[in-house]
């Protein structure tokens, strides 16, 4: 699969120190991360070009989380089974992707504004205005520290139950140091250092007190919020189920009550409804509508409705797009139709897709028949099953005895292109 080395799009990687730009670029260029980081440092030392480039890439490349969220979103457009829904709710995927999206928008705006301000300042300096750089640098430090700390929200919100890891703590601490350092640097211009230190301890004590008092409240609020959110999701799901049950099941039940004198009709209605509901709840939605398994299942279903018979379809593997697929499905339909018309009892269909071929077995419990005794002018079996399979490059065999009849179909599985090349 990985034979043609495909260049990845730049995606800010999980392996990150600040925002994952270097990691993503390294993956994209296929060079070690440390080289990229060194290059950025060197560029930053050369008049801050590296910083600007970093900021620019930060804003314009998606993070790995966001890309994942995008995938989830497109995946979300497809019909999910009940089990998948439940699993998703448990994993909190909903919350993850919502947070990732809202936060990234936020951050983009913030960084854009910051860069703009920096550019204006640089322009002003160049134009000869006199700035108090001794004030501006601390402010930049504070803003950077805040940003660094807030960035971690992004990460912890995506994986709410992941353990707090060391890098997260380091980044938070770094952010805090930057902010406090910047504040101190600004204040040191007006307040004596000794006073500052005293004030620092006082502030620390006040903060500690406030945290102790407010922590339980905060935790409770957070828990309430989580409970509320999962409630909302559950309600939405219930509404969806109710709508579906009303559309299909209740309608069918009403029809069944009306037609209760006709056992065959009631049985078919129940069977069709059961199939539909089962498909909806546990359906094999990992298969394409074009898949041979799905096509044969659909044929079986339509014959069930038409002939008021039960057909059990068991499938192993799946496959699509091979040359004889249409012929195979049509022959299978014909065989199922024959079984439904002529045989009593259960009809079993088994589809097996191996890499080399697709086989279909249609089994009934009828009295059986002798292939030789069918008149030449009757087209059913000879034309629609045997002839059709042979023309498409497959094979059909019919075994009939007192235990019933089994039609065995097999079709080699070359792709359309291969067939054309071969002929």
């Amino acid at each position, binding site marked *: 699969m990985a034979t043609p080395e495909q260049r990845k799009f730049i995606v800010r990687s999980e392996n990150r120190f600040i925002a994952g730009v270097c990691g993503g670029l390294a993956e994209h260029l296929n060079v070690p991360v440390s080289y990229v980081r060194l290059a950025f440092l060197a560029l930053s030392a050369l008049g801050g070009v590296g910083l600007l480039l970093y900021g620019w890439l930060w804003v314009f490349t998606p993070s790995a989380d966001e890309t994942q969220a995008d995938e989830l979103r497109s995946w979300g457009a497809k019909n999910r089974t009940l*089990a*998948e829904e439940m*699993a998703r709710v448990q994993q909190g995927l909903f919350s993850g992707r919502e947070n990732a999206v809202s936060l990234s928008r936020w951050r983009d705006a913030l960084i854009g504004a910051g860069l703009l301000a920096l550019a204006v300042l640089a322009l002003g300096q160049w134009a000869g205005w006199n700035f108090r750089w001794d004030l501006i640098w601390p402010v930049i430090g504070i803003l950077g520290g805040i940003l660094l700390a807030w960035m971690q929200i992004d990460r912890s919100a995506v994986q709410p139950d992941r353990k707090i890891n060391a890098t997260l703590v380091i980044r938070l601490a770094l952010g805090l140091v930057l902010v406090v350092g910047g504040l101190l640097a600004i204040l040191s211009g007006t307040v004596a250092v000794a006073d500052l230190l005293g004030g620092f301890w006082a502030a620390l004590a006040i903060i500690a007190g406030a945290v102790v008092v407010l922590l339980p409240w905060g935790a409770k609020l957070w828990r309430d919020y989580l409970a509320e959110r999962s409630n909302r999701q559950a309600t939405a799901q219930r509404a969806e189920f109710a709508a579906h049950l009303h559309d299909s099941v209740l309608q069918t039940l009403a029809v069944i009550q009306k037609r209760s004198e006709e056992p065959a009709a009631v049985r078919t209605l129940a069977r069709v409804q*059961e199939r539909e509901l*089962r498909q909806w*709840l*546990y359906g094999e939605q*990992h298969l394409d509508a074009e898949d041979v398994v799905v096509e044969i299942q659909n044929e079986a279903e339509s014959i069930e409705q038409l002939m008021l018979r039960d057909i*059990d379809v*068991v*499938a*192993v*593997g799946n496959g699509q797009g091979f040359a004889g697929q249409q012929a195979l499905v049509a022959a299978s339909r014909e065989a199922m139709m024959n079984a439904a018309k002529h045989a009593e009892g*259960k009809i*079993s*269909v*088994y589809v*097996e897709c191996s890499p080399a071929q697709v086989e279909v*077995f249609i*089994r009934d419990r009828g009295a059986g028949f002798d292939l030789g005794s069918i008149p030449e002018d009757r087209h059913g079996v000879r034309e629609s099953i045997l002839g059709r399979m042979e023309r498409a490059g497959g094979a059909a065999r019919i075994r009939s005895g007192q*235990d019933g009849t*089994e039609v065995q179909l097999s079709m080699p599985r070359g792709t359309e292109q291969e067939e054309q090349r071969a002929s």
Partner: protein
Amino acid sequence: MSETTEQTYRVVLVDDHAIFRSGLRADLAADLQIVGEAGSVEQAIEVIERERPDVVLLDVHLPGGRGGGGAEVLASCAHLFSQTKFLALSVSDSAQDVVLVIRSGARGYVTKSVSGQEISDAVRRVAGGDAVFSPRLAGFVLDAFGSSVASGQIDEQLDLLTDRELQVMRLIARGYSYKEVAKELFISIKTVESHVSNVLRKLQLSNRHELTRWAVERKIL
């Protein structure tokens, strides 16, 4: 039906739908004596512990307990397996349900839509120590064990089906009864039964990575 009809089996019915239980009660053959019924995980465990039946007809989806349904009952009754056999019943024949209960220790699996006659046969078969494979379960087994790609850590005893076992599974998936499988392969019914039991054991014990991956894909594990 079979030669052993003289023996009566004691059966416990576990299903949360009273309507279904009464229907099944009426449908089951006379030699199957229903000694208890239960409608939830707790009731089921209590009744099974008290009655020690030969066979438990166990619904896969059951309320109560820790929400584990039939698999939870199986886990709690694992110490009775030598005496009491479990036959799983379900309206759904989704892969999740089947594999979960089989791997939890059920000796077979039938869907609720099959006739009373078929369920009765399945109960006798399970009581006699054999496994009951529906065509669909055979299909799942072939799906999970089918790929012949050998990987490094394959335990030959558990992770591979023999050719004969594969043949038997394919015939069952095609809708053949045990008797018809025996006739087709020129072997005795007893041999077919032992092949099926072996496959069941492998299905329960194998940690073949395909099985795990397949289960993960379908959100079972």
